[in-house]
């Protein structure tokens, strides 16, 4: 019954790991053809893979785990999806109903453990409810502000001896759940009035614009406005990075011009973005002269950190459409040429302290390989078309800064939760969803070891991912903070020569491996890796361990114009 319901919901792939309480479900899985199951090596991998699948397709990821440790191992991945508002349904098996509360073998209160990190959760108390609960779970995961939903399934609820007539509901009716869809017209009018009178506007788009599939509407809006656009870490790709109006990412490691533009603007149009602490720096110092228009589907995201002057609650896509159509009626009142001085100012900032995107042209062996240069090479060798997953740390920021994403859903990273170990399993989910596309996991030697067991899964399902391991032999971002704020005391951020030989490790898992230590070998080594279309290649690249990520906002007590540009250089 569970399998039929999932099939009705359009599920093609499930990521999971069997165990005692899940055996009835796994037997049902075995006896059907519609849904493929991917056996991971750790339940955390299952959740991240389902997450990568969801982020890259817009469809919900589905996870199946057993009770007890199976469920608790999934917790990190559920929290990751929750913090980034990724739709996911987690089928978490449970001991039989009569054993609940008895401290039975592999019993844990998964509903209790996961409560703060799910959008909603269900326990199945009657087998007949399975179709309705599955329907509601997918509906809740996919609508409103998206997120993970856990379904706790006691073993007796999947017992094969009890049979029911299967009827899948056509529609969902949850009377207490009515997320906003269309924005209020008077707020749309106010938003357009504010846009028409702005001299220094900035469009600031985040992950919500991607969830809402609003990149076409964003493009259309800016065809009219011709305003500068910045994206959050979660929003990269929703506006094409190669467009002349794109400022790059903003926030803690955002570009100088993006942060300066935000700080000095007179109108910020926030589109599915939530002013989190990595964006605003000190909220009381944030963009002192800017009026805020906030488009969001979640009431609680608006005016939480930064007070919005105008709020459009609804699907971001719909809100943008309404703004566009009202703007079109008032085109005679808008002249994008009035923004020329503003663009000129932004160009000056960019010329002064913009990122150098030509580091990759230096192949001299006098210098160690720069991590930034690795990302630039990867960008050029994949023609900017790859799906890029990342882990968490310096390599993640370098990837976000130097790989230019022109399309949404191609940059897959754990933004809010910052989950190390995300990159490789997420890349598996992406590759399974897009088998003909290049999928690159940009990682570091710290993060990759947190879910490295999934190399085995990659062999089983033949997933020719390219792993770019930016190896600085240290927990780089921790070390950077220790350099900057703790007098260079590298407390527990290095490994004392205990790293594995990643090339041999990869080979022992049945894959290829390439080690690169010299600048002059970088281009050819990467080319060799990307030429092996049918193989997973682990490229272990030794980079300059002293390199820091810049720009970096000065914190605490800084604003968006207080920026470190280098080790001894402040804006």
């Amino acid at each position: 019954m569970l399998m039929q319901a999932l099939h009705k919901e359009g599920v093609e792939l499930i990521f999971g790991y069997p165990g005692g309480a899940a055996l009835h479900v796994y037997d049902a899985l075995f006896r059907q053809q519609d849904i493929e199951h991917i056996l991971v090596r750790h339940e955390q991998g299952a959740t991240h893979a389902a997450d990568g699948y969801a982020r890259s397709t817009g469809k919900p990821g589905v996870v199946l785990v057993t009770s007890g440790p199976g469920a608790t191992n999934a917790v990190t991945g559920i929290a990751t999806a929750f913090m980034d508002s990724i739709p996911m349904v987690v089928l978490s098996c449970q001991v039989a109903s009569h054993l609940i509360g008895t401290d039975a073998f592999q019993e844990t209160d998964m509903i209790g453990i996961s409560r703060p990190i799910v959008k909603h959760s269900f326990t199945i108390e009657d087998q007949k409810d399975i179709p309705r609960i599955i329907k509601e779970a997918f509906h809740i995961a996919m609508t409103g502000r998206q997120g993970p939903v856990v379904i706790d399934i006691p073993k007796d609820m999947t017992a094969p001896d009890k049979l029911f007539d299967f009827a899948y509901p056509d529609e969902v009716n949850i009377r207490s759940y009515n997320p906003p869809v269309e924005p209020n017209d008077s707020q749309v009018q106010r938003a357009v009035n504010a846009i028409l009178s702005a001299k220094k506007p900035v469009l600031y788009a985040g992950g919500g614009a991607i969830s809402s599939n609003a990149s076409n509407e964003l493009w259309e809006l800016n065809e009219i406005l011709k305003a500068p656009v910045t994206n959050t870490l979660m929003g990269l790709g929703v506006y094409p990075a190669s467009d002349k109006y794109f400022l790059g990412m903003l926030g803690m490691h955002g570009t100088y011009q993006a942060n300066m533009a935000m700080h000095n603007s007179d109108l910020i149009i926030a589109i599915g973005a939530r002013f989190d602490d990595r964006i605003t720096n000190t909220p009381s110092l944030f963009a002192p002269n800017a009026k805020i228009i906030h488009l969001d589907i979640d009431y609680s995201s608006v005016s939480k950190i930064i007070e919005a002057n105008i709020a459009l609650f609804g699907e971001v896509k719909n809100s943008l459409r309404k703004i566009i159509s009202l703007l079109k009626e008032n085109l005679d009142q808008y002249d994008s040429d009035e923004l020329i001085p503003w663009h000129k100012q932004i160009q000056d900032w960019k010329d002064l302290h913009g990122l150098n995107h030509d580091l990759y042209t230096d192949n001299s062996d006098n210098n160690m390989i720069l991590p930034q240069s690795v990302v630039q090479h990867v960008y050029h060798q994949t023609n900017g078309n790859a799906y890029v997953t990342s882990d968490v740390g310096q390599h993640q920021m370098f990837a976000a800064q130097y790989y230019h994403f022109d399309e949404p859903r191609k940059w897959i990273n754990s933004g809010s939760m910052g989950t190390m170990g995300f990159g490789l399993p997420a890349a598996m989910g992406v590759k399974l969803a897009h088998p003909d596309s290049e999928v690159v996991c940009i990682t570091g030697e710290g993060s990759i070891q947190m879910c490295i067991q999934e190399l085995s899964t990659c062999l089983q399902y033949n997933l020719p991912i390219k792993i770019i391991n930016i190896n600085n032999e240290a927990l780089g971002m921790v070390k950077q903070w220790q350099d900057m704020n703790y007098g260079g005391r590298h407390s527990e951020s290095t490994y004392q020569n205990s790293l594995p030989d990643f090339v041999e490790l990869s080979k022992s898992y049945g894959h290829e491996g390439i080690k690169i230590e010299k600048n002059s070998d970088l281009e050819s080594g990467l080319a060799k890796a990307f030429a092996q279309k049918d193989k997973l290649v682990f490229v272990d690249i030794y980079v300059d361990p002293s390199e820091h990520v810049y720009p970096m906002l000065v914190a605490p007590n800084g604003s968006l114009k207080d920026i470190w540009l280098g080790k001894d250089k402040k804006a």
Partner: protein
Amino acid sequence: MIKRKILIILENKPGALARVVGLFHQRGYNIESLHVDAVEDTGPYKYLEDELNIELKPNEVSKMTITTTVNDNLLTQILRQINKLIDVLIANEEN
């Protein structure tokens, strides 16, 4: 900072209470008093039935009152967070 009374109408289901109470802890708000009862007489909630276009049956929903000491901005945020819970029909400040 003044004492506020929040009135919540939520589904009378296992776990619904825990979601509300848990939310206060997760978001760093304090509960000073808490009272929950199943709603037997749905008469006073006619307005809610009209607003949500639903019909309430006896004991189907619970009425919860929570007092907490917060400023205006935080109260708005708390109410929005509570209203976001799937099992909550409505949460308001009680006057």
